[in-house]
């Protein structure tokens, strides 16, 4: 009896850790719930009920003994698709029976503690390159490529910096887009850049909440109404922050 109780708690710990990593890395709600249930049932807990929202996970397992329930709180959310893919892989291997409970926990812990696969400068470079490319995709001229490259890169760098300084998403996004507007204005007024609008649109793209919007809609359609609305609100707030930052530039100049 005591053994069985302990095992149920161990299974729950593995499931919750997997769910936590996935949710923090930006997976869809249905994927998190599905993964947790799969892991639980492959370890022998056939009746489990995960309830996942963007800010917390409730998980309960039914068995012969009284039902056990645990709650964990999710505070920090980032986008780390590599981790989603890795946890997904672990869950597949658990289903195939390749791991014991302890091994699975260790593997998941390793994934949770691992850092980003790319360095900060690669991130900034990617943001810069994508800003320039978006400028061309939105029918901009090639002479604006360089201004958009610089503006987008510095804008993204400042987003990361401000976020480290004050961990309020709205503030960092607002300041980053304000800085993007200022830089674009500088490039246009010195004659290096041509079209102000195109440069700003291209450079703002790395900040746009594309992942959140897609996830919000998929959650809503899958019937996860609370998660869908919460993510939608998050996306709206980000879009509003970016818009407000740019709007400040226009109202002053």
């Amino acid at each position, binding site marked *: 009896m005591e053994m069985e109780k302990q095992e149920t708690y161990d299974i729950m710990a593995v499931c919750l850790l997997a769910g936590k990593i996935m949710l923090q*890395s*930006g*997976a*869809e709600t249905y*994927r998190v719930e599905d993964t947790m249930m799969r892991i639980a049932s492959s370890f022998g807990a056939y009746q489990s009920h995960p309830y996942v929202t963007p800010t917390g996970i409730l998980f309960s397992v039914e068995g012969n003994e009284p039902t056990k329930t645990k709650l964990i709180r999710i505070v920090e959310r980032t*986008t*780390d*698709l*590599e*981790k*989603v*893919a890795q946890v*997904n*892989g672990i869950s*597949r291997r658990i289903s195939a029976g390749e791991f014991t409970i302890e091994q699975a926990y260790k593997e998941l812990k390793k994934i949770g503690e691992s850092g*980003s*696969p*790319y360095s900060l400068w*690669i*991130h900034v470079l*990617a*943001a810069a*390159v*994508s800003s320039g*490319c*978006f400028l*061309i*995709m*939105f029918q901009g001229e090639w002479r604006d490529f360089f201004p958009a490259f610089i503006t987008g890169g510095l804008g*993204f760098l400042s987003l990361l910096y401000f976020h480290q300084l004050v961990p309020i998403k709205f503030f960092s996004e607002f300041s980053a887009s304000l800085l993007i507007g200022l830089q674009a204005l500088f490039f246009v007024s010195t004659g290096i850049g041509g079209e102000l*609008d195109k440069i*700003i*649109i291209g450079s*703002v*793209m*790395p900040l*746009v909440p*594309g*992942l959140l*919007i*897609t*996830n919000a*809609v*998929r959650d809503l*359609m899958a019937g996860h109404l609370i998660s869908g609305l919460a993510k939608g609100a998050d996306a709206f707030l980000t*879009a509003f922050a970016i*818009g407000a930052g*740019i*709007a400040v530039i*226009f*109202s002053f100049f």
Partner: protein
Amino acid sequence: MTIVEQIITSFIASAAFVIIFNGPKRSLFHCGLVGMIGWIFYFLLETNGVDMVLATVIASFTIAIASQYFAKKYKTPVIIYSVAGIIPLVPGGIAYNAMRSFVENDYNLAINLAAKAFMISGSIAIGLVFSEVINQIIRKSKLKTIVNKTH
């Protein structure tokens, strides 16, 4: 010339976005491919006079099919591919112009543009969901044939 330009830039932009989202290195190329396919569909339809909303639905539908193909083939979550593809379609330009009109007190134009941005985000979602539904129908019909065989 423009089309070559668009093909190259959309490929690079989508792949770069996967780096920003910390996507797996081995799927960078496929993500770029998904983004490129979606954007070229959208671009060709839009420049040939198809309505923006309809062009977005078709493009996001194509993206979703391509992502599901890659997700099945490489056993990776579908979200990695679909996010990369969707990003170019997000109506950033229209939302920006709407914001600008709001600030310049041109509310009529601003509401117009905002409604358009909303419609386009909705059509991205419709394209994604539509292909998911088709995917599930195919999967279910396959399951049924398996069940029938075993019984």
